[in-house]
């Protein structure tokens, strides 16, 4: 089976900022993304959990997207602009995909 090189960007961000992040990603031309809830974790500020929380303040979300290597840099930059002053992680890894056209919005438009 033939695969194609792509980049997988994973952003863990504070829940109250999610809408701002996804809007910026849309504006930066993200081909799509998936938002996942985060249940619990531990970091610089110690352990935390979503159990029993009513406020969004203590919650985190994960945004995952797969894109072309050419677009990855701009999307990372857009994500970092939002996450930089806040609690969160932005990471990028190499991955392989079967249908590269799904992750390149400009290819569909041309």
């Amino acid at each position: 089976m033939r695969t194609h090189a792509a980049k997988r960007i994973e952003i863990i961000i504070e829940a109250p900022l999610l809408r701002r992040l996804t809007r910026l990603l849309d504006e930066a031309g993200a081909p799509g993304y998936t938002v996942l809830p985060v249940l619990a974790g531990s970091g610089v500020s110690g352990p935390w959990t979503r159990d029993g929380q009513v406020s969004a303040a203590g919650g985190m979300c994960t945004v995952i997207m797969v894109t072309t290597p050419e677009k990855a840099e701009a999307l990372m930059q857009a994500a970092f602009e939002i996450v930089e002053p806040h609690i969160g992680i932005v990471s990028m890894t190499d991955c392989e995909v079967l249908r590269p056209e799904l992750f390149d919005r400009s290819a569909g438009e041309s």
Partner: protein
Amino acid sequence: MEFFALAGQNLLSPIVLSFVLGFAAALARSDLTIPEAVAKGLSIYLLFAIGIKGGVGVAESGLSPLVISSLVAGFVLSAAFPFLAFALLRVLSRLSVTDAAAVAGHYGSISIVTFVAMTSVLDGQGVPFEGHMVAVAAVMEAPAILSALFIASTRGAGRKISGELLHEVMLNSSIVLLVGSFIIGWVTGPAGLERIEAFVVSPFQGVLCLFLLDMGLLAGRGIRESRGTLSGGLVIFGCVMPLVGGAIGLGTGWLLGLSTGGIALLTTLCASASYIAVPAAMRVALPEANPSVYLTLSLGITFPFNLTAGLAIYFALARMIGG
């Protein structure tokens, strides 16, 4: 003597004991938890029920100048308290400007659960209160956030208040639900309430107990995990600020001409600190502020203080000046 009897009654009420159970379970590292979705469901129920009942109260009593003056007073108090809290924090603690502004915002806004707990005390004592106090609670949610951001920005901290942030603050879910259900109650009146009474009135106390169990778990967990975060001065602030705010609320309620129940509720609103709407706004607008300081202080110190001692004090004082 009457005060101690009331305080004892309050301490042994199901709602306070539910809170104590959650608090103790968290400190003892029990695996007891309330799932996030259930906690949010309980909070939606409580906001909806209290809003409906408040609206029905106004439908019964009618609109009066007192409603307008109470709303204006609530707005002004909420906007003014962060300045007072900030000044007190600068005296009692060594918090940075950003942290102090964020904490101050919490103390200008309100805790709707503390308000609901006071309505429960009033119901238990057979003391009526003005239905429009629910609208006053909704009005007091947001102004403090803007004051806190103003304090931070005039001292070189924080960010510009954007239109998006303003939209989020003014239309946060608590405000929308409280105001919306208040209007439903007002429009439909006692006849409307009668149709949903089995859902909105009868289970209220039981749901409140479960919600306070969750609050106890959160407060206990917060205290356990942030040991060393709060200095002695901050703990003193967490107990003194409610009394200072409450005293101002008490005087304002008396000047407005509210009933004894209304004065007790305004005192409670002024004495309480937010832990739902304000923390979320602060994470967006003041990300440099340490959330474990303001959340632990509001939820771990002030909320338990108000629930166990404050409610009895505020009710006794309201009865003293309200007759």
